[in-house]
Structure formats: C-alpha cells, structure tokens
C-alpha cells in the first residue's frame, strides 16, 4: 500500500514537472521583441505585446518592421505601430509608407483604412494631402471614415474644406458623422457646414454636428440649436443640442432650455436642466 502511495506521489510530481516544462515553453514573448514583429508569423495579440515591450525599451532595429505594420489589417496593431514610430520621430518615412498603402487600391479595405488611421496617429502635416485624396475619392466608406477621423487628429489648417464637403455630400452617414466630429478639431472650421448638417437625414450626423458646434462654441449657431432642441424628432439629438447650448453659454438660450426641461423627451429634458444650471 505504501508503495502505491509513493508511486502515486511520484507520478503526480512528474505530471506537474511536465506541465511546468510546457508552460515555460509557451511563456509570453521570451526574447527580443523585434523578432515578434513579423506579421506573417504572428497574430495581432503577439504583435501588440511586442510593441508594448518596445514602448519602454525601444530598439532602432524595430523601426523598419514597425513601418511594415502601419497598414496592418488589425487597427490596434496599426495604431500602436504608428504611435511608436511617432514617439521616435520617424515621421517622413512613416508617412510615405502609410500614404503608399492608403493610395494602393489593390490593398484590402482594412489595409487602406488602417493606413489612414496611422496617418492620423503620426500627426504629420505631410499626411494631410493623401488623407484628403482618400476622403474625396476612395470607394470604401470605411477608408473615407478613417481618413476623416485622421484629418481631425492632425489639428492642422487645410482639412476643414474637405471635411465640410464630405459632410454635405458623402453618401455614407458614418462618414458624414466622422466629418462632423473631426470638424470640431480643425483650426480652420467654418461653422456653416455644421449648421447645414443639423438638417441631415441621419440622427447620428445631426447629433455629432450639434456637439461639434458646442465644442467650438459657435455663437452663430444658437438659433439653429434652439430649433433642434425644440423640434428634432430624435431625443438624443435634442439632448446634444441642449448640451451644446450650455457650452456656448449665450443667455439667449436660457429660455429655450428652461422650456425643454418639461419636454416630452426625458433625456433631452435632463440635458436641458443641466445645461440651464450654467446660466445661474
């Protein structure tokens, strides 16, 4: 009996040792993280883990493999690669690499859209032209959407006109929504395009336009926003108008906000009540 117990314990120990050996063989990214930047061999999780290690301990040998990831089909990978390259000051070559992938219509939609995303993360003025081209002409809505978002992230003069045009005319409401959002970050924004978008057929576009008018504190928009607060069929849009009126802070809006506190939309009434407090 003792023999069997001893044998059982030995076998248990053996099983644990075998298990431990297998464990250590699969440990996460042992070795040089640069070796894990090969997108042909490794999936997004591994690539991101490797880049997080590089974020605190960068190796210049990583620069070239990272540029190859700027248009990776996984957006988290592309975003992380672009941020790492930007943080190392690798602007010119990175923008060229991403712009080339963005313009190549043989690439998949994911590759092109993530190339646009990367150009936004890189924050270089040189990215503006290829992004405007993509916003104006890429056939895939996802690519145009990412281009609009990226133009907003550049925070530079020169993108507002393209965003305004797309806000008025793009067939995709997702793209129009992204344009309305990005315009609030464009230094040369003209609020008139956002005012027009308050009449868009899609509630998401109207809501985002109202928010953007609040973000840029567009005094000229108060009358239009009051109209939205009172008449828009979508309660979320009305609440966005209430928020924007509070942000702009023109006392003219107070009466409309007070009235909206008793309106039929609960969410807009709540937003109006909070916005009205700013006038006390």
């Amino acid at each position, binding site marked *: 009996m003792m023999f069997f117990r001893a044998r059982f314990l030995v076998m248990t120990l053996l099983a644990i040792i075998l298990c431990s050996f297998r464990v250590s063989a699969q440990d996460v990214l042992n070795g040089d993280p640069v070796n894990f930047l090969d997108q042909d061999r490794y999936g997004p999780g591994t690539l991101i883990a490797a880049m997080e290690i590089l974020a605190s301990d960068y190796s210049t040998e990583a620069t070239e493999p990272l540029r190859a990831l700027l248009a990776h089909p996984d957006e988290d990978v592309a975003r992380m690669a672009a*941020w790492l390259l930007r943080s190392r000051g690798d602007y010119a070559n990175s923008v060229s690499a991403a712009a080339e992938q963005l313009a190549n219509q043989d690439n998949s939609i994911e590759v092109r859209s993530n190339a646009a995303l990367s150009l936004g993360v890189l924050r270089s003025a040189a990215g503006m032209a290829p992004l405007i081209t993509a916003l104006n002409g890429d056939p895939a809505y996802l690519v145009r959407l990412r281009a609009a978002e990226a133009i907003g992230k550049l925070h530079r003069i020169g993108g507002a006109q393209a965003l305004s045009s797309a806000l008025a005319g793009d067939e995709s409401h997702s793209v129009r929504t992204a344009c309305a959002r990005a315009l609030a970050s464009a230094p040369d924004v003209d609020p008139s395009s956002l005012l027009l978008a308050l009449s868009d057929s899609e509630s998401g576009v109207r809501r985002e336009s109202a*928010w953007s008018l609040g*973000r840029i504190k567009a005094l000229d928009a108060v009358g239009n926003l009051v109209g939205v607060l009172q008449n828009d069929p979508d309660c979320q849009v009305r609440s966005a108008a209430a928020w924007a009126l509070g942000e702009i802070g023109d006392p003219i809006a107070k009466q409309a906000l007070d009235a909206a506190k008793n309106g039929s939309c609960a969410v807009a009434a709540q937003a109006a009540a909070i916005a009205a407090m700013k006038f006390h």
Partner: protein
Amino acid sequence: MNREQTIKSFIMAILTAMLVVGCSDDPPPGLTPSFGFSSIAFVQRAHERNAGSLLNLSSPSPGASLLLLEPAAPGGKLTRLVDLADGSIDGLDVSPDGKTLVFGVRIGMYDRYHIVEMDLDKIGDGSGCLQDDGDLGDQCRRLTFGPFDDTNPHYLPGGSIAFTRVSPDGPVDFQGRGRSKVLMAVQADGSDIRRLDYGPGHVFGPRMFPDGSLNLVNWTKKHGKATFMTMSIDPTQYHGASIITSEIGQQGLPLGISRDELNRTFASCVAPVGTFSAGTICQQNQDGVFKGVVPGLPTGASCSPEGRVKDAIPIGENKFLVSYAKVEGGCVGVLDDDKGMTPDFGIAVLDARTAKRWPVYNNPDYDEVQAVAIMAHELLDRDVDFPQRPELGCDRNTMRIEGLVGKEAISNGAVGIRVLQGLSAALAPFAMTLGGSDVGAFCAGQDGTETVAPIMADGSFSVNLPSHVPLQIELIDNYGASVMRDPIWRGGPQCSERRCSACHSNDGSGAGFDNSLAARAEPFDLAGQLEQQRDFDFRRDIQPILSRSCAVSGCHDAETASGIYVDLSGNPRGLDLHDEPSGITSVAYSNLLFVDSIRDSHGRVVQTMRPYVVPGRARDSRLIQKLGVPCRYSCNGAPTWAPWGFDQEHHHPDDKAEFHGELTDEERWLLLDWVEAGAPFHGRGAKP
C-alpha cells in the same frame, strides 16, 4: 509497474490535481444567505479578441447586453435589462441599497459612452430602457451628456457617482497616445460634474473603500518614466487630493482594489500586456505590495493553464465573484488567441484560498464580465447604513472652512486668507496648460469686492465659501503675495464644514478653535456668485498696462529691447513686452512666462535665467520684485513697500521717469494678483 498501471496512476494524478484546483458541483456559496446577495447583474458581450494590451485604449467589439440573474446560480432566472446590437457597455456598479444600477453605455458603434442609472424596482420584463426614438424609459436616466466617452461608473458616499472620462478636447496623455482617461464625479441628478484626479495619466478600475476613499491604478509619468501607481483619492476633494499608495511594476497590476469584511485589501492582478486584462486575485501585504493568493493562478503574463480571473469582487469568507476563463491546453493569453484559442469568460464564485470554483453563469457564445452582486433588500433594510447627502435639509448654499493658522505662517508674514476658485477648461480654455497648473479666479463676497478674509490676532479664521467648486486656499502677506499655499484643491457640499488646526504647520499650536476670536465672530463671506469672482485675462487686464508703461520706445518695445545688451553669442537681447501674437499666446506673455536661455556660438546653453513670472508665486517672480509692491492689507506698522522686492527706494518703472511709465498702486496690485491667480493667458469665457 506495468504500462496499464502507469497510465492508471497518471490519470489518477491528473484527476486529483484537477480536483484541487478545479470546478465544484456544490451549490455556489452565493446562494447561501450568509453572503447576503439575492442576484447578480453582469455584462455579456462578444468574445474579446487580441486584447494584447490594457493600455491600447481601443474599443470592444460591438454588441452587448446587461443581464440580471436571480437567484445567482445556474438555472436562475435571466432577465435582459439592456440589449444592444451595435453598442457596448463598459463598467457596471450597484448602489449600496441594491436598488439601482449604473453603467457606461453607448447605443451605436459611432456613438459615445454615457453614464446611465437604472431603477431595479421598475425593470418589469427588462424592456424599454433604450427606446427607438433615442429616449430612455421610465426606469433609466442619463447622468452625463456631451461628446465624451464616460465609462466605469462607481457609486460614492452620498449617492454621487465616480466615473472615467475621455474627452476629445481633454488633456493629451503623457505619452502622446491619445487623450487621458481622467476620473470624474457627478451628482445623482447629473449636476456638479467635476474632475477628481490630476495630471496627464490614465486611471483604471476606481473602487470605493468602506472609508469613502476611491482607490485605483494611475498610469502616468514619474521621474520621466511611465509608471503604474495605486492611488487613494478623497472624492469629496478636487484634483490633487490623492495619495500614492504604492508604485507597481509591469507584473501584477491590481485593478478593482476592494476591501473584504475583514478589511483586507484585494484586487484582480493582471499583466498590462497579453492576458486579456485577466490574471489572478492578489492581496496587499503590510508593505503595500500586492501578491497573488490563488493556488495555481500566477500573477504576470506567464502561462496560466488553470485559467485567469478578472473583475473580482470580495463577497466574504475568502470567496470572490469573478469572471473566469480557461483555455484547454493553453494559457488564456495572446499566443493562444493568435492560434484561434480564444478564451470564454463566464461568471463564477472562486475561493481564493483553495482555488475551488463554482460556476454561476456562462454562455459559451459570449463573454460574461463585470458582475456585481445585488444585495437582498430585506438584509439591507436592517443592516446597511446608506449615507445621506449632507446638503439635504440645509438652507445655506455655502461650505465653511475655519481653523487656526500656525506660528510658522504668521512669522512669515501671513495676515489674511485668500481663496482661489479653480476655473475649468470650459470656463477658461487652455488656462490650465498655459499659465501653470493652478489657475483660477479669486473668491469674492456677495458685493463682489472683498477678496481677502482676515486672520484674527490669535491666528484664527472662519470663511464661508462657494460649495461644489474646487478651491485653493492661500495665506497672504500685507502686500497680497502668498506666504503659503494649500497644495490641494479642496471643496465640499453645501453646509459642510472643514476645520484645520495649526494649518500648514507642525508646531501643534492649533488646539482650541472653539474658544478663538474667529469662532465668536460671524464667518467672513467669500461666497459670492461665480460672475462676481475676480478672474484675469492677460490681453484684457495685463497687456494694456504693459503697452502703456513698458512697451514704449526706448524701453521694452520690440525695437529697443533688441538692442539693450548683447549676449554671449553676440545677439542683442532684452525684454520685449509688445502685444503681438506669438504661437498661441503673445510676445509679451511668452517672454514673461518662459525660461530664457543664453547660448554660446555652438548653440550650447551657458546660462539659464528663471522666468520673470512664476505662476502662483509673486514673491519669486522677478517682474513683481522689480516693480515693487506697496502695502495693501493691515498696514499699520508694516513696511510701506514689500521687503522682498529688489529695491526699497527705487521702483520700476517709476525710476525711469523720463519715459512717463509710472504705475499706480492699483496696477501693481493687479499685476501681483494676476501672478498669484496662476498668470493665465485666457480669462473666463475667452476663446482659445
């Protein structure tokens, strides 16, 4: 031993090992009355994919539900409280009385996250919280609005709610990856929204301790390096009221720090990279270090064949409500995920001491995460003291601060109390980043004139201040310059009172405020309306003085300033104070505020001159020292001019009478006040 016996023994060993760390068919302990919860709520969403990094700040896949399971056991009744085809839910908490849930939700893929509160008493069959016209049903109300991503809500004492916010116009994080995830708080009616944390970092997993403090992980820069820190925040205060409790490495990041019934501190320890933000349960030891406590579940990112847990909540007797996943033959890590071995998280109760696990609910097609235990009302009605809001029943719209000033401050010349009211980015765009971190307007009385409360002869003071706004208290001298400044922005609800003894001093002289002069007098009123507070705008208030008396021909205009003296590299230099735009401010502002360096012909810095203006420190600002400041408060017996100025006899620019650049006493005080208010460029309401 023959081959058959060997195989038999091996299988027995494996089965025994599984029994030690594996599942149990016993009824989950959550069912027993001793744990006191009747049901659980949790979030169900698509399996997480390639969640390589906690710090990647990306969005989860679209589609999510908020579910209620009652009783909290396999086979319990499942009620779908919210169902989102395109949207998502991030963060869930239950109120201390178990009657409401609060969660971060976005309705569509391109919508923003907002904080929504739901009455559990009104849920019925669970339909109707989110309606087709964008409105919310009777059982739900939205607490936050605007183009922000508000997630991870958590109830605070008094019914207010803390949450994390990412704003498109918020502070850029310290690494430049994106906007910081900051900690905010809002009252239960959606009012008084304010920021609680401070700095350009990200906050993760705020949870409240029984003492009312908020505990979280802050990822920010310290000594030039990205660092994770656990932090304790007093949610009744404003940014700056935090204590760093420990610095932690990349391994075992404690998220969701909680205390159990024995006041032990636990958390879900995860590696920031590669583990789906899951790990093990760890306990904080006496040195403040979090150590894994579950047998078989490692901290860090190494392989975990026995699975990983996240979102752990202590429910008593070493048991935790957790989200748990295991990958057969894998590690619950990114390497498995890249091979298509994606973990399936489900809700379970886990005994941290033995690793014994009782599955509660799992749908293999989805992840179930962020579970909260909902206490049985009948238990709560008897045992739980739900904190009341202090302002209920109060007819005063102010808070009060009173106390005794320490001897050290008195000996440094403190004669009065002045209070700076913080201006938010909405009120003063860019002010917080341009003029230093402590920018605001001075509190004034109801008549809008008094800005300084006196310190009584015995060092006592009592001041009524605006409630629900961030306030910074400074002790000032006869000239209006701060002698000492409270490093923390304070604040409180209406009718609250704060008292300090021997404020800003360790000399122990503060006992006995009740018998002080201030205690016997009416509190000094500095609680005027916001519009009456004195704020500053460089172009509106300061530049006109500079243009008239300084930037004149022969002095500090562009032309003259360029020829006043020659620096080491041969370039003519001087202080140019003319009003031309420069970058996002002006020539005069940037010349006054920013460090000036003299370089040699090789471009090397050979001399660094401190700025003319040090925001918040008039006594250390060369501009104010050079101009001199006449006495302003309690002047009986005090020197006519500030003794910390450069020259007691000659005061610039009066000493240059040929240029007609004299300043009045009021203008000198105005310049000093602007410096003390943080030297902002933009004032309230100014456009950036």
